[in-house]
């Protein structure tokens, strides 16, 4: 891609956003001028310019994407060459699933769907699958091992699907991937990173390898994941919005990014050699939350690849790349909390020497995605302050002439014009997405028809209007707590089978409700005509508890589906890999034991079950072949009398009397695990502690059933 052409695209795109921001900001400044300038109005104008620019960039993505899609001239990597004829003989690709205390059944069923889909392409032998576990929960660890064996047994995939558990989770996900690359990276020309909830079509995986083979200067190709499998109302709305609007936004993003794209952490293929050479992440200077380990590693890894002149593309027209979305507003916010900290940390990387400007843009917009919340809150507070001050200072509301007299607008009409422009900028991409849909009959049917899709867009707009104030408050909290060096810690959500429980929603949203009621009352007292303009804002806050609970409900999601609302192409015509995934998950749901598990049930199983114990010990023994792990095991004191003493204590007093680290230490010692197995079955009943007697009784009962 000639550099000049690329720069021209970047210039054109952002100039349009800037020009729009400039014009509307002038109009807004003029409006402020008409009621008398003040310092607080300067603050308001600055906030407006920043927020409007962010909205304008979003709008431009929609406009450019729409024009490119309709003109049929998108420049995507899939259209640069005829890659389909490319041979992938001689290539080797690892498909990795880094996991950390995930829903084990879902991970393996996603892997199974991907594996079976790839098998159908006839190219399976060019791929290996790796489950890379960082799970710290022993129960999860044992379940992962057991289900790994079950899967390779069922698919006859021994030597094709591998499992590796790390002894510590140093470096989190990026550390997990680095550990894989250090052990096996050199065996594979490419690796494809999947998330715990990823599913990928076999043909898409093969296409990604072909594209890499056809373009030797490309370091990474990001396949755009479609949100799927949502059942709650919120999940289905998010899924619908993702499927309908993303096509436009991503085409717009690709317009200016081209070969300077970005990496979203999963559903992407990476050229192993340059990644290993350039993408080991440095530790950031300073203290937490900004210093230390880079949490959101993907953007930085992409920036490091681009710095070394490797290309990164979005393969946004490749179908068959899927992921899932949170099913409730609170879960959504929990995910945002993690991402917020990682994105704010990028502010340290933003000015790093040698980075491409496109990388800086990707990093900056990631940061702004979270800063927009507190900025919007500041804008609202400043606006209300000005309004209140104007009212209580006794100053007149008489407006002076505008700098734009040719518009000949009254003060009210002037304000309304600014408001309408803002709304158009926010809503235009949705409208363009609908027009784009109207042109494509096949796609219309995939969304349940134009009429239903239109109702869906209206419903989604109402939802996002009510959701936005909550996002604003949450993001503000996340940003502020992060800036003060603290992370917001939330306990695990207690979910009912059908979604968020009322007590949990009250616990998480009472502050929002209070804020909604107080701000509503304040504005009502301030000016009743203003009250109605602010209704969407405080309604979302005041009713956040029922809003959060109801949108997490599966039955409401199913009801909307029955009415044909928020339908997506994967719902109207489910692809085979998703059908397979759902079928296997359903079988599991119907056949698995739904009774709550005893604490430490994984440890009990690894000790008592002769086969689970054998698998566990066998994997531990294999670990020792890696010198890094062997050294770590030695450091932990594996094989020492101290571990045997802990094991004796475990047998006598049960796992509750041991610390979590002590239980894990026992579980990484192969000889101790074999010893425990023998002792638990050979020792007379009376010499075992009561916990083990109960565990054996329960194990024997389960085994019989």
């Amino acid at each position, binding site marked *: 891609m000639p550099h000049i052409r690329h720069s021209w695209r970047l210039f054109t795109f952002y100039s349009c956003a800037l020009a729009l921001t400039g014009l509307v900001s002038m109009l807004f400044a003029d409006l402020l001028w008409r009621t008398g300038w003040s310092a607080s109005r300067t603050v308001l104008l600055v906030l407006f310019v920043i927020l409007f620019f962010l909205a304008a960039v979003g709008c431009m993505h929609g406009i450019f994407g729409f024009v490119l899609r309709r003109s049929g001239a998108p420049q995507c990597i899939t259209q640069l060459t005829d890659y389909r004829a490319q041979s992938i003989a001689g290539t080797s690709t690892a498909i990795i699933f880094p996991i950390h205390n995930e829903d084990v059944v879902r991970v393996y069923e996603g892997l199974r769907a991907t594996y079976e889909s790839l098998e159908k392409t006839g190219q399976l032998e060019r791929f*290996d699958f790796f489950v890379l576990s960082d799970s710290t929960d022993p129960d999860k660890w044992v379940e992962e091992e057991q289900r*790994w064996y079950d899967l390779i047994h069922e698919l006859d995939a*021994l*030597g094709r699907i*591998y*499992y*590796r558990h790390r002894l510590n989770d140093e470096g989190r996900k990026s550390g997990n991937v680095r550990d894989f*690359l*250090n*052990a*096996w*990276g*050199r*065996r594979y020309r490419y690796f494809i990173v999947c998330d715990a909830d990823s599913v990928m079509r076999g043909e898409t995986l093969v296409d990604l390898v072909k594209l890499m083979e056809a373009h030797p200067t490309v370091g990474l190709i990001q396949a755009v994941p479609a949100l799927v499998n949502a059942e709650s109302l919120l999940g289905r709305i998010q899924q619908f919005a993702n499927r309908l609007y993303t096509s436009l936004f991503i085409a717009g993003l690709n317009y200016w990014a081209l070969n300077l794209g970005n990496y979203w952490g999963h559903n992407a293929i990476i050229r192993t050699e340059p990644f*290993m050479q350039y*993408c*080991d*992440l*440095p*530790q*950031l*200077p*300073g*203290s937490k939350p900004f*210093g230390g380990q880079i949490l959101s590693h993907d953007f930085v890894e992409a920036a*490091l690849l681009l710095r070394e002149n490797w290309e990164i593309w979005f393969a946004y027209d490749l179908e068959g790349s899927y992921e899932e979305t949170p099913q409730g507003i609170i879960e959504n916010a929990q995910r945002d909390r993690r991402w917020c900290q990682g994105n704010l940390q990028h502010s*340290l*990387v933003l*000015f*790093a*020497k*040698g980075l491409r400007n496109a990388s800086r843009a990707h990093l900056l917009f990631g940061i702004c995605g979270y800063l927009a919340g507190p900025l919007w809150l500041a804008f609202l507070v400043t606006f209300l*302050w000005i309004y209140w001050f104007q009212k209580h200072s006794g100053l007149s509301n008489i407006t002076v002439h505008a700098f734009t007299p040719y518009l000949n607008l009254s003060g009210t009409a002037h304000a309304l014009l600014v408001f309408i422009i803002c709304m158009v900028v926010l809503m235009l991409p949705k409208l363009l997405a609908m027009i784009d849909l109207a042109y494509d009959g096949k796609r219309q049917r995939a969304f349940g028809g134009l009429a239903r899709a239109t109702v869906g867009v209206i419903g989604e707009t109402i939802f996002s209007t009510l959701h936005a104030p909550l996002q604003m408050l949450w993001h503000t909290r996340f940003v502020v707590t992060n800036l003060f*060096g603290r992370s917001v810690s939330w306990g695990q959500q207690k979910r009912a089978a059908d979604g968020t429980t009322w007590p949990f929603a009250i616990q998480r949203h009472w502050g929002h409700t209070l804020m909604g009621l107080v701000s509503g009352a304040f504005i009502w007292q301030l000016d009743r005509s203003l009250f109605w303009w602010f209704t969407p804002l405080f309604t979302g806050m005041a009713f956040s508890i029922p809003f959060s609970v109801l949108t997490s409900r599966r039955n409401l999601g199913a009801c909307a589906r029955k009415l044909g609302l928020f339908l997506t192409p994967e719902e109207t015509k489910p692809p085979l890999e998703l059908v397979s995934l759902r079928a296997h998950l359903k079988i599991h749901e119907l056949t698995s034991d739904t009774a709550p598990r005893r604490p430490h049930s994984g440890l009990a199983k690894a000790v*008592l*079950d*002769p*086969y689970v*114990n*054998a*698998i566990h*010990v*066998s*994997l531990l*023994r*294999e670990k020792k072949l890696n*010198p890094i792990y062997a050294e770590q095991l030695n450091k932990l004191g594996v094989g020492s009398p101290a571990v045997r003493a802990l094991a004796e204590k475990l047998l006598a007093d049960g796992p509750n009397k041991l610390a979590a680290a002590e239980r894990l230490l026992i579980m990484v010692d*192969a*000889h101790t695990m*074999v*010893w425990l197995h*023998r002792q638990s*079955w*050979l*020792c*007379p*009943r009376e010499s075992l502690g009561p916990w083990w007697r109960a565990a054996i009784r329960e194990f*024997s009962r389960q*085994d*019989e059933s």
Partner: protein
Amino acid sequence: MNGIGALTDPSGHLAGRPLEEWNAAYEKVENYFHALRVRNKVLLGQLVLRVLERAMRRAPAEPNHSATQLAAEEMDRLVIEWFAAVLQESSVNADQMLTTRGRLALLLADMPGRWQDQFLRPGPWPEEFVGAMRETYLRAGPDFQLSKMTPRPFDLGPITTLTNFSRIPYLKMALSWILFALLLITIFILTH
């Protein structure tokens, strides 16, 4: 069965121990074989009795050991001997790992599904079964090709200077005071 019958004494004891003791021993051995997924009840019963018979023979000479203890030891010995024979390893001074290897081989050869009748049976065994037991090997990963990723120099530019400020003692406290002062100034400007 005849062997056990011969060990019954007139008081109703078996090998000098009350029946309840042997019942507990039976349960213990049965549970373990059940855990190994030996599901055929006839076979299961036979295997348990075989173990108990060996335990009963030892019982008179070892009055300090309970019937359960003797049965558990005999079960362990029988299983180890059988694994050693099938896997062609020595059972004398057998490494603890022999039982692990044996159990893994049972699983990989699909003993619970295909070869229940061969479990603990003296040889010769069907070739396919022996082959499956001896050749199976659980591989959790391919051969290592070890390397070491190292971070490249990364100049953060002006941010490096800023992060150096964070090392100043009491920086947060000073910053919060400055912020407070700025807030007062802002309020003053806004209200005048």
